[in-house]
C-alpha cells in the first residue's frame, strides 16, 4: 500500500515561506495569486495489506515524527 501524507502549517502559526512565495509571485506579475501556504508532501510505501492497521500506524507516525503537532496539521490518504 502507499500512503500520501500532507503536512501544512497550522492556521494560527506564521508561515513566512508562504508569504515570501506569495510576494515573489506578485512581483512576477501573477496578480491573481492570493494566500500561499507551503507544506510537505510525503509518499510512504507500506508493506501491509490491512488498511485499518495501516491507518492506525500512519496516524501514529504522523503524530510522532512526520509532523510537528505544535505547529503543523497533517492529513493522509491511503492507496492500495
Amino acid at each position: 500500500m502507499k500512503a500520501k501524507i500532507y503536512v501544512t502549517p497550522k492556521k494560527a502559526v506564521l508561515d513566512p515561506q508562504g508569504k515570501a512565495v506569495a510576494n515573489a509571485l506578485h512581483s512576477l506579475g501573477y496578480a491573481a495569486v492570493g494566500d500561499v501556504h507551503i507544506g510537505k508532501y510525503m509518499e510512504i510505501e507500506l508493506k501491509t495489506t490491512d488498511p485499518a492497521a495501516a491507518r492506525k500506524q500512519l496516524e501514529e507516525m504522523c503524530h510522532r515524527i512526520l509532523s510537528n503537532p505544535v505547529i503543523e496539521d497533517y492529513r493522509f490518504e491511503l492507496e492500495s
Partner: protein
Amino acid sequence: MIEPNITPELIADHGITPEEFERIKGILGREPNFTELGIFSVMWSEHCSYKNSKPVLRTFPTKGPQILVGAGEENAGVTDIGDGWAISFKIESHNHPSAVEPFQGAATGVGGILRDIFTMGARPILCMNSLRFGPIDGNDEAARRNKRLFAGVVGGIAHYGNCVGVPTVGGEVYFDESYEGNPLLNAMCLGLLRHEQIARGAAKGVGNPVFYVGPATGRDGLAGAAFASRELTEESHEDRPAVQVGDPFMEKLVLEAVLELLQTDAVVGIQDMGAAGLTCSTCETASRAGTGIEIDLAKVPQREPGMTPYEIMLSESQERMLVIVQKGREAEVQRILDKWDLPWAEIGFVTDTGLMRVKNHGQVVAEIPAAKLANDAPVYYRESKEPSYFAKTRAWKLSDLPSLTDPQKVLPELLASPTVASKNWVYRQYDHMVQTRTVVCPGSDAAVVRLKLAPPPAKDRYLAITTDCNGAYCYLDPYTGGAIAVAEAARNIVCSGGRPLAVTDNLNFGNPMKPEIFFQVREAARGITAGCNTFGTPVTGGNVSFYNESPAGAIDPTPVIGMVGLIDDIAHITTQWFKNHGDAIILAGNAVDAADPYLGLGGSEYAKRLHHIKAGLPPHLDLATEKKLQDAVLALIRDGKIKSAHDCSEGGLAVALAECCISRHPARNTPALIGARVDLSAFANGTRLDALLFGEAQSRIVLSVAQESADAVVAQLQAAGVPAAVIGAVGGDALEIRTGASACKWSVNELYDAWWYSITRKMES
C-alpha cells in the same frame, strides 16, 4: 465583544495574587477590565518584572569606568572599549519554549537577543549559547527525547543565526539528569557601536508619532512571558499557542532597517516587542521618558481577523519593533522602511499624560499609568532556607569513593562523556565565520574575534568571549559554584590572551517560592558578586529564568556567566593546543588542592560519570589565588613566552592534557594531533590517583613554552606567588602520564577518536 467578568478565578488564572490585585486597584483607582488584567499579568510576571529576583540582582556590582549604559537601564548594557568604540552584549533564556518546541523555541530565543542588541544601535557581530539537556547515552525513551530536544535546539539556533548572518562563535553544552524535561537554552549576542550611536528605548517628545514596524500581529506566543513564569507540567504541551514561529529573514531586514534608521536622527526612541509584546514596549518607553503614550489597536497590522484588544496587546509575534519618530521626519523613516520592504504602520503618539492609553477604533480599552505599570510591580523578599539535601550530599566522604586502580580505561571514557567531549557536532552546524571576524573558531577555551575597526594592515582590536557554569558545583554549594562560574570564565579569557572586561549573567533556577530554591539563588548571586569584584568585571545586564522544574524536581542551579575580555594585541591571542614537538609543559597552580577535603572530586565529571555520585562539596576556590594565577599567566602571554594555555576544568588535569594534544583541527577530518610525555610523580606521593588525574581543583592552567624559556617561566610564576612546575614535554604520537610507580600511555588517535566523535555517535545511533 463580550469580555469575561473579573472573578477571583480569572485573577488567579492570570497568576495575580489577591494582594497584587489590590495593588492594581490602588493604581487604577478602580477595578481593571479584562484587557488591563491581562496587561498587568504579563508586566508583573517574573519574566518582565523580576519581582522575585530584584533584591538579589541589586547586589551585583554594576559600576565601573567602562560602563556607558548600566544594567537594567535599557534593553542591554553598553561597555566602553576605547577610542570611541563600545560593545553591547547580553544573554537571555528561552527555556520553556525550547522544552515545548525545541527548534522554534531556540530560534526565537536567538531572534529575541539579537533584537535587544541592535535596538541599542549596535550591529550584532557574534552569538554564543549555553545549553543543558538530560543525558543522551543509550536509546531508551528518555535518551531519545533528550536527543530530540538537543537536535532541535541546535538546529533552531543554526537556522536563525546562520540566516541573519551573525556568527555563532562559541558556547557550552552540559548533560545531566537534572535537566531532563527542562532543558536550558541561553543565547547571548554581542554588538559593536560608536559611543554616539547609543540608542534609547524612550518615548520622548510629546506629539511624536509612534510607528509599528514588522510583520502583522497574530495569536502566536500569546502571553509567553506568563508561560515562562510557571513550572513546566505535563499539561505544558497544551500551552501550544505560547509557541512562536520565527522568521530570520524578516529579522535580517528589520536589523538592517533599524541600523539605517538610527544613522539618521529622525528616530528618538526604539524598542523591540519581545516578551509581553506591544504592552511592554509601549509602557516601558513611556516610563523611561516620563511621558505617556496613546495607541489605537485598529491601526496595528493583524494577521488574523477578529483579534481582541487583549490578544493584540499580549501577542508575542516575532520580529516586531516600536519606533518613536521625530515629528515631521516621518517621510524619511518611511523611505527607509519601504526600501527594506518592511511592513509598518503609524499606530499612535507620545502624550504628556503619563498614561498608557490603548484605544480600539477610537474607544478606550485600557488606561494605565505607564510608569506604575512598568516599575511598580511588587518586589518580594523571598524566604530562604538551606536545602535539606545538603545533609545527604555533605555526609558523603571522599573515602566512600573506591580508589582508582586502572586509569587507562578511564581517560577515554571521560573524554567521551558528552559533557567533556568535543562539541563539533554542535558548532559545525553554526556559521561561525560569517562577517570574517572570527580569529579563534569554536574549539579553544574562548572564542576570539577581531573588530575590523581598521582596514589591514593597520592595528585592529580583538575580543575574547566565553560562557561558563557548572550546575553540579552550584547544586553542591551555590556560593562556590557561582564564584567558580566567574573564575572559570575569566580563566578562559586569560588563556586566550585577554583581560576580563565585563559580564552578563543568566540565572536559571527552579521555583523561587520554595525557600530552598531561593537559598540557591541568593547564594549563587553572592558567589557571582565575589567573583566579579575579584576580576573587576561589572555585570552589564542579564536575565532571570525561574520555575525550571519538571515533575521530577528542580534543575541544578545554573547561573550562566557570559564574559567578554579585551585582547590588546594580535600577538597575545593564544589557543589551547600544543604547538611544537620539544616544547616544555608547565602546570601553573597546584596539582592537588590540599585545602579541599574532596581534593577536587566533589561534583566532578569523574565522580558523576564513573561512579554516578553527585555529592560532597565542589572544588575549593580561593579568589585571591585565582587572581594571582590569572595575572601571572596574562603577563607571560604579553611577554610572548606562552605557546599554548588551557584551563583545567571538567575532567581535571588528565583531560586538560589530552585536549592540548587532540583539539587542534585545521580542516575537515584532518586533526593535527601531537603527543606529550608527562611526569606527575613529584605530586603522586600520598595522594589519591583519581584526585591527581581527574580531580577538578580550581586555579590551574596547563601551559606550553619553548624548552629554553621553561625555567624562566616557572621562576616568573613562582615569583608571582603561583605554584608552578615543568611536568613534561610535547612530542610523539602518544600521551604518556607517569604517576610514581605506574604509568599510562594512550595513542593520541585513540583519545581523539573517543573525544571528537562521541556526540556524533550518540546522536546517530
